[in-house]
Structures are given as structure tokens and as C-alpha cells.
């Protein structure tokens, strides 16, 4: 630390480099009543970046339903949402993106994405119990894409495996729109006693502020700003903006953090992610309606000669800022010493509402905390919206152009081995999905399921989004993401509780992009209202574009559901010979937006099949009640690849016990639509012969459409005279595809 620090003069170029426009700079001058100095400019730059301020999204996000039963922390309240699940427990969860870092440095980008989301969970006092990842890449035919997949998967695996959180599920999708800008959305779920939730607040004049965990280095400076611009060729040069993860330190940090919380030593705590010390200081003090004075020379650093600017903006990982209860400083240090981590007093709470930074007693930056944060003085914009022209063209398809003289067996093989449908075991086996010994269902069924020790209950967790649907119709696409997540939870025997979202879009300053964003928010809000699943928070990631294109609008939904009794846990695969297979819902003649058109005809085209939210909700409620009455032996939703793929998955997805099925479909619709169309709101269930009547009577009473599809048994999947395949062949197509295309050389 230099004893004297001279601030470089603020120039126009410097302001532009910091990503602040004229209007924003004028506002800064108005707030301060003077020109900002270099350090202050850096602080405003990161706090008012899109990543931290949500300036182009917050006005729409506020329209999402945020109220619900049993919410202990609502959207915007804390680092993550929290829901009371009874038995004195609360579940804490959140999803977040780490797209841009992963695009330029896949291993560290993905690893630190996992690290960041885990800290969001344990900073609230919750023990992380599960992680999921929703990943999107370009076509795996592209060797660079395979390099990204490999690095991202290793990064997620190495971090989560070492930290000791089971990675229990998620999604992996491939589409060319994600070629240069993959989407890496990491979700974490934690458990805490319902009275044990800790707040990210600093208050009480004179209370000490401590930095704990890793030392501060030069890594990740301006990461938040980097996340708030489009990727270009030059982005590779920003690799130093990517942080470096250390899961071992994070493991020590979680133990030490949970210990100081349990011992009642703290007023509040906030992790340091984007914008590092700057963000945690301003947010904690703004929340406490207090101020914080930071003695920047007291921060433990990794290298000599770091300037206050660098220390304030560093995004070094595995650090937390703690507001300490009076007199508990030594007790905190004792605990951090035990775990071999630094803990140091770097300032204290004031009552002037200012974030004040001093260097050897001299004030070098002073800004009202409230002016820096979302909901305070950070800018809020309403952006222009324009319906993109492509929507008029691309949704029209000519059904006559798709031949009906096809070998449907071959088409089913093609779909089962298509990158978007095939088993992602190659990915998931690289994650420890079982550590902590609560995983009842890991990756590979409709939702992940974790039992809750010492209770009868379990949690069901799912992430979902069909980017193609959102590209073709962002509103229905977002509705479908919520509906599918809820359907997956219900198929596993759970009641959907609440949602966290990760909104991945292109540049918000392009009106066509913003149209998609606005429509998606509208659709998501409508669906969450119907399913009674409030949005508890999440994250917005704009500027997901490479020089060629923007990504598909991708509003990823992470949903948590509660299974009341572990006996209700239901899996997707068929169980016993002679069981009856029923379809809840109705087959209609749709082919638009299907994976079939994508896989066979290389088209992302057509109308997204309509979705009636109320009807979908009724179907889900019926299924949940039937599962709770123990009438259902398996349940699997029909989604990508349609009915034939869903049935094949029911036959083969349990590799230990694969079984065939004989299916007779009476619908008078085109065979391609019948087998592979993606009509919404359909679920394949199986039940014992004895229970069939009770189920069908109930559906008749409720006026729900259903049909008897056939019987479980033998070793072939037979559908009318269209499909007739041995389950071993289906299994080979489904399970061997990903290792084959990932281990392709060149």
C-alpha cells in the first residue's frame, strides 16, 4: 500500500472507459455537488453498471408477482429468496449467470459462478444442500464449443465437488445462437432454521466492519463492467477481468461463516461478488440506513502496491464483509483462525449515510451509500420496444414441405441421440451428485429430489427454459418455462413453492431485444401468478451477443417444490410389466417450435404450441393429488421431442431396469405431429391395473382430457405401426450420443 496516493485526473476518455454516459456523469456531479475523483468514478462505474444496478430491467422486474405464502425473504430483500417449509426450516435459493467470464475463460468463469451463488446462500446463514446448472452452448459440431463445454463442466465439477455440495441437476442445451456467448446459469439451494436467517445489513454506529476470508488481489477488477457489454473479438483481452476460484478456501469460509452466525456474533454479513468491497459496503450501509467508513489501508492484500481503486474494485473470490456485534471481534477472529482464514477490522458503521474511504486517515472517496444502490440513487431507465420483423417470417411453416413418407424408427433414433435430448450423463457424472447423502433423485429424472433429514419431507428442484420457444414467442416461451418447471416438480411428487429466475438476453439498447425481454417478463408474471409461485429474486444478464448474433431470449426458471412425504417421491420411468400407461392431456396437430424440426430439418421455426395456463394448472393439481393418493407409479412430462421421446425415456431412463411398452394411439393426426409434436400440457403416467379405473373416473369427473395409451412390458417400444424398436437400441442411441460427440477429435 503506497503511503501517498495521487489520484489521476478524470478525463472524458476515462469517463467513457468506465462505461458512464453524459447523463449519468451529470447525475454523479449533482449527487456529489462536485466532480468525482478517480476512485469515486470507479465506484460509480461498477455500482451503476447494468450488472449491479439493473438500471434497464428493474422497472419491468418489479411487475413480477413477489407476494406469496410463507415467504421469509422476498425479491430484493436479501441475497437470495427464502421460503418457510415447516418443521422449523426454511429453504433459501437463487440462480445467477456467469456468462461473459465463461465465454473467455470457461473453467474459471464457471467455477467462480458456482462459488458466487454458494456464497449468496451461506451469507444468509443457510447450509448449501444442492447445486444445479442451466447451461447453453453453440452446436457441438464446433470444436471451440466443445472446448467451452469441457472447460465449463470441469470448472463446475472441480468447484462444487471440492466444496462438498451435491450438483443434482440442471439442463444442457445446444443451439447456434449461443456459439460465441454461452449461458452459464448456476443455482444453489440451502437450508436454514426458519429463525436463523441473517441479513446483509450494517447498522449501529461504531460497530466494527470486518473483512474475512481470502486476501484481496488484482483479479476481477471491472468484472461487473465487463459483464455489462457485448462480447467482441477484443473480449479475449479482458480475461484478467475473470476471477480465479479456490473451492478449498470457500469450503473453509462456509464453515467459519456458519459458525460465527450460529454463535450470534454478527449484526449482518454480505458476500463479495461483483464489484467486491464497493458493492458490499454500499449495499450493507444503504440497507441499514447507515454509513460505513472503510480504512482501505487495513484490507489484507495479496501483493504490494495495490491502489485503493484496485482494492475497492477487486473481485477476488471467497471474501465476506461482516458487521460485528460490539465486543465480538476477538471471538470472530478466533473462529477464522481455527479455519486458517484472515479476519480483519477494516472500518466501522457511521450514522452519516456515507460510504467513506480513507487511506491512512485521509478521505479519498466519499459518496452517499444510498445513491449507489438499486432502489436508491442508481439510474432507472425505460427502454424502447419494437417487435422484431423476424417473428412474422419465421413462425410461418408449410406443413406440406415435411414429408410423411419417412422411417419413423430412424427419426426417433435421430431425436434420442440429438444433443438437446440425449442423456447428459457425460456431464452429470463429472459432478458429485451424492455428497451430504440426501440425494434421492440426482440428474436424469424430471426434477432433482433431496430428502430433508429428521422430517418426512423432501425438496424437488428443477431448472427449465426452452430458448427456441422464447425466440419464436417470448411470452408463451416464458410461460412455458414456468409451466414446465412446475410440471417437473409435480411429476416428482412436489408442490411448486417459488421461483428464482435468470434472465439472459442481448443488448437492451436494441429495441427488438428489449421487446423480447418485456414479453418474457409479461409471460413469466402471468404463469407465476397462475401457479402461485412468486419470484423471489435472481439475476438479469444483458449483452449476451457475439459479433454475429444475440442469444435466444432465455429466461431460465429455477423452481423449488415441497414433497410432503418421501413416499410421494415419483420417478419418470416405467416400473412393472402389465402396468397401464395413461396420457393426461390431449395430442394435437402441432409441429411448430419442435426439436423435431430442429434436429431433422435444421429449423427453428413455426408457432409455439398454445399454452392454456389455467388448464395446465388443473392438470398439475390433479396429478399431484393422484400421486399423494399413491395411485401413480411413474410420471413424466412430454416436452422436447414430443410423445415418442417421452415414452422412450419412460422405457430406458432407469438403466438398471429398462422395460418396453406397447402403445396404441387413436388420434387422427399427422404421424410426425403425433410422435414428435410438442403440444403442451401433457403428462405420461403409469399405474397398476387396479388403480386405472379410479384415476380415469377422477379425470372424467374433473373434465380433464386423457387417453389410455397402452401397457408396460416386454423389451420393445411399439407405437401403432409407426415405431417398433428394441429398448437396447433406444438405450444405445440415448446414452451413447454425448460421449461420442464430445470426444470427437478436430
Amino acid at each position, binding site marked *: 500500500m503506497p503511503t501517498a496516493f495521487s489520484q489521476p485526473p478524470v478525463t472524458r476518455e476515462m469517463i467513457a472507459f468506465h462505461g458512464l454516459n453524459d447523463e449519468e456523469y451529470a447525475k454523479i456531479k449533482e449527487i456529489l455537488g462536485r466532480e468525482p475523483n478517480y476512485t469515486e468514478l470507479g465506484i460509480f462505474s461498477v455500482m451503476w453498471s447494468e450488472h449491479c444496478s439493473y438500471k434497464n430491467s428493474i422497472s419491468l422486474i418489479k411487475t413480477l408477482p413477489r407476494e406469496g405464502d410463507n415467504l421469509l425473504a422476498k425479491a430484493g430483500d436479501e441475497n437470495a429468496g427464502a421460503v418457510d417449509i415447516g418443521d422449523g426450516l426454511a429453504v433459501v435459493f437463487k440462480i445467477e449467470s456467469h456468462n461473459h467470464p465463461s465465454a473467455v475463460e470457461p473453467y474459471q468463469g464457471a467455477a467462480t459462478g458456482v462459488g458466487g451463488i454458494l456464497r449468496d446462500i451461506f451469507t444468509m446463514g443457510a447450509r448449501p444442500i444442492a447445486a444445479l446448472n442451466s447451461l447453453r452452448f453453440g452446436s457441438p459440431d464446433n470444436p471451440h464449443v466443445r472446448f467451452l463445454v469441457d472447460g465449463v463442466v*470441469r470448472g463446475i*465439477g*472441480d468447484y462444487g*465437488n*471440492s*466444496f*462438498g455440495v451435491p450438483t443434482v441437476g440442471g439442463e444442457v442445451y445446444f443451439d447456434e445462437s449461443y456459439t460465441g456467448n454461452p449461458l452459464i446459469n448456476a443455482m444453489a439451494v440451502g437450508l436454514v432454521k426458519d429463525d436463523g436467517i441473517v441479513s446483509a445489513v450494517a447498522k449501529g454506529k461504531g460497530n466494527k466492519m470486518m473483512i474475512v476470508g481470502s486476501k484481496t488481489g488484482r483479479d476481477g477488477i471491472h468484472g461487473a463492467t465487463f459483464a455489462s457489454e457485448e462480447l467482441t473479438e477484443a473480449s479475449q483481452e479482458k480475461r484478467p477481468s475473470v476471477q480465479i476460484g*479456490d*473451492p*478449498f*478456501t470457500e*469450503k*473453509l469460509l462456509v*464453515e467459519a461463516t456458519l459458525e460465527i452466525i450460529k454463535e450470534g456474533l454478527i449484526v449482518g454479513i454480505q458476500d463479495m461478488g461483483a464489484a467486491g468491497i464497493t458493492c458490499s459496503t454500499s449495499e450493507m450501509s444503504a440497507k441499514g440506513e447507515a454509513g460505513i467508513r472503510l480504512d482501505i489501508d487495513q484490507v489484507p492484500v495479496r501483493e504490494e502496491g495495490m491502489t485503493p481503486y484496485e482494492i475497492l474494485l477487486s473481485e477476488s473470490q471467497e471474501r465476506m464483509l461482516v458487521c460485528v456485534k460490539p465486543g465480538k471481534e476477538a471471538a470472530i477472529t478466533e473462529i477464522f483462525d481455527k*479455519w*486458517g482464514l484472515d479476519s480483519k477490522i477494516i472500518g466501522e458503521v457511521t450514522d452519516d449515510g456515507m460510504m467513506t474511504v480513507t487511506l491512512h486517515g485521509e478521505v479519498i472517496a466519499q459518496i452517499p451509500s444510498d445513491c449507489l444502490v438499486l432502489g436508491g440513487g442508481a439510474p432507472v431507465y425505460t427502454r424502447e420496444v419494437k417487435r422484431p420483423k423476424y417473428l412474422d417470417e419465421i413462425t410461418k411453416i408449410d406443413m406440406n414441405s415435411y414429408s410423411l413418407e419417412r422411417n419413423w424408427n430412424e427419426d426417433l433414433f435421430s431425436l434420442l441421440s440429438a444433443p438437446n435430448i440425449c442423456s447428459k450423463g457425460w456431464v*452429470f*457424472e*463429472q*459432478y*458429485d*451428485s*451424492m*455428497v*451430504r*447423502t*440426501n*440425494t*434421492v433423485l440426482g440428474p436424469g429424472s424430471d426434477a432433482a429430489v433431496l*430428502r430433508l*433429514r429428521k422430517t418426512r419431507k423432501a425438496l424437488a428442484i428443477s431448472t427449465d427454459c426452452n430458448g427456441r420457444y422464447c425466440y419464436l414467442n417470448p411470452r408463451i416461451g416464458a410461460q412455458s418455462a414456468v409451466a414446465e418447471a412446475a410440471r417437473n416438480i409435480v411429476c416428482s411428487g412436489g408442490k411448486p413453492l417459488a421461483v428464482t429466475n435468470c434472465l439472459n438476453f442481448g443488448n437492451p439498447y436494441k429495441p427488438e431485444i428489449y421487446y423480447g425481454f418485456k414479453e418474457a417478463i409479461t409471460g413469466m408474471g402471468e404463469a407465476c401468478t397462475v401457479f402461485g409461485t412468486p419470484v423471489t429474486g435472481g439475476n438479469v444478464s444483458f449483452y449476451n451477443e457475439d459479433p454475429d448474433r444475440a442469444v435466444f431470449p432465455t429466461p431460465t426458471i429455477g423452481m423449488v417444490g415441497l414433497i410432503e412425504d*418421501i413416499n410421494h417421491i415419483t420417478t419418470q420411468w416405467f416400473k412393472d410389466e402389465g402396468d397401464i400407461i395413461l396420457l393426461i392431456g390431449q395430442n394435437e396437430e402441432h409441429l411448430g417450435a419442435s426439436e423435431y424440426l430442429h434436429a431433422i430439418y435444421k429449423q427453428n421455426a413455426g408457432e409455439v404450441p398454445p399454452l392454456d395456463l389455467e388448464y395446465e394448472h388443473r392438470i398439475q393439481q390433479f396429478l399431484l393429488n393422484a400421486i399423494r393418493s399413491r395411485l401413480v407409479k411413474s410420471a413424466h412430462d412430454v416436452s422436447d421431442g414430443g410423445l415418442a421421446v417421452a415414452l422412450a425415456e419412460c422405457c430406458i431412463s432407469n438403466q438398471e431396469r429398462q422395460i418396453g411398452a406397447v402403445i396404441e394411439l387413436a388420434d387422427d393426426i399427422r404421424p410426425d405431429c403425433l410422435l414428435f409434436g410438442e403440444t403442451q400440457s401433457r403428462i405420461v403416467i403409469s399405474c397398476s391395473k387396479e388403480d386405472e379405473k379410479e384415476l380415469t373416473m377422477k379425470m372424467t369427473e374433473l373434465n380433464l382430457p386423457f387417453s389410455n395409451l397402452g401397457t408396460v412390458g416386454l423389451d420393445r417400444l411399439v407405437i401403432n405401426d409407426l415405431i417398433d424398436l428394441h429398448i437396447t437400441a433406444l438405450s444405445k442411441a440415448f446414452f451413447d450420443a454425448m460421449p461420442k460427440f464430445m470426444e470427437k477429435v478436430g
Partner: protein
Amino acid sequence: MKFGVVTFPGSNCDYDAYAAVRFVLGQEVEFLWHKSSDLCNADVIILPGGFSYGDYLRGGAIARFSPIMEEVLQFASSGGPVIGICNGFQVLTECGLLPGALMRNSHLRFSCKYVHIRVESDQTPFTHGCTVGEVLNIPIAHGEGNYYHFDKEIKELEDNGQVVFRYCEADGSITEKANPNGSIAGIAGICNRGGNVVGLMPHPERAVESILGSADGLKILNSVNDYKKVTAQA
């Protein structure tokens, strides 16, 4: 019977081992902190899975220098039963209680899945309740589980009956396909000459309740739990 579970700072299966002993086996169990030199009168020592000290260098490479390992060495040399699971197995080879080394998986990736292992020896405290040839369904979760030793030493291990578990198919046959990490001779677990120190890569503590997929791991924990009683009667 009292169990001690060693906690290195980066252990992450310590709680799982603790829970298996305490809640499923119903036995007394205590965590043993790595900086401590007190085994708390434990009758059995478990070295759990995880990443003892981060293990960026090599699994278990630093753990052998910790104070608690001094005590574990003493305990083992006096015949006390010690089991090293996954990272614990790595620690046992690093500190010389077990021969050989665990290299990176031959496919160079972390691998987490259920595998089958065949019991090759019932002459250890941890397998005496099993029968030779019995097949157990137990998960693995490791990146460095590729067991290796020189041919001569492998032959010695085989001749002395020190190979305790081997990866196999569900029917017990030993195939290359069933070997998840390239281990020489399909070795999943071994013991020392005395048989009281066992190391294995699969996680028996994860397979103790059928709701989690398998309860076969209980056979290993039950073996050692009954062991003292058997020897006491003898």
C-alpha cells in the same frame, strides 16, 4: 463401539460418515479435528472423503503431516481398525499405511456414479461379515482413484490376500468395462498386511439407506461394528 471420524479442513464426507454411524448404525461417534492429537478413545477410525487440504497438489499429499495422523499411525500399528474412504484411501497411501498410489482416473475426468464391487477378502474387520465373491452396489465419486503399484507388489498383494474389493459387473464378473478409473487389476480397495487398515475408493457411507439407492455399504460398517464383539468372545 465408538467411531472417530477425522475432519481435515477440506473433508466433505465427514458428516456423511458421522450420520451413517450415528443415525443408521446407532453407534457412538465423534469428529476428530486434524490439529488435535486425541483420538477420543475411538475403537474404529474413519478417514472420510473430500479434499483434505484442498489437494491441488495431489489427493492426501499434505494430510499426512497433520497432528491427528500421528495418532492414527500409532493406533493402526497397534492393530486398531482404520478405514480410509476415497480421499481417506489417498491419505493412507500417502502416509505409508497402505502400499501403492492413486493416480488420476485414466479418462482424466471426475466420475460419480454407482458401481459394483466384489468382496475379495473377508479377513479384515470391515469385511468379515461379508462373503468372498459377494457383490456390493456402492457409489464412487473421485477424480484420482486409479490405483497403481508395480507388478511385483501387486502380485504380493494378491498372494497375501490384501486385495479387498475389485470393480465388477452386477453378476460379479471382472471386466474392463466395469473398471471406472483404470485401476490395475480392477482394484477398488486393499488392506495392509495385518488386515486392520483398509482403503477403498467407493463410498460405503453413501449407501446405507435404500431411499438413497442402496444399503450395501452397511455390510461394511456392520462388519466392523460386530468385529470387536466377535474378537471379544473369541
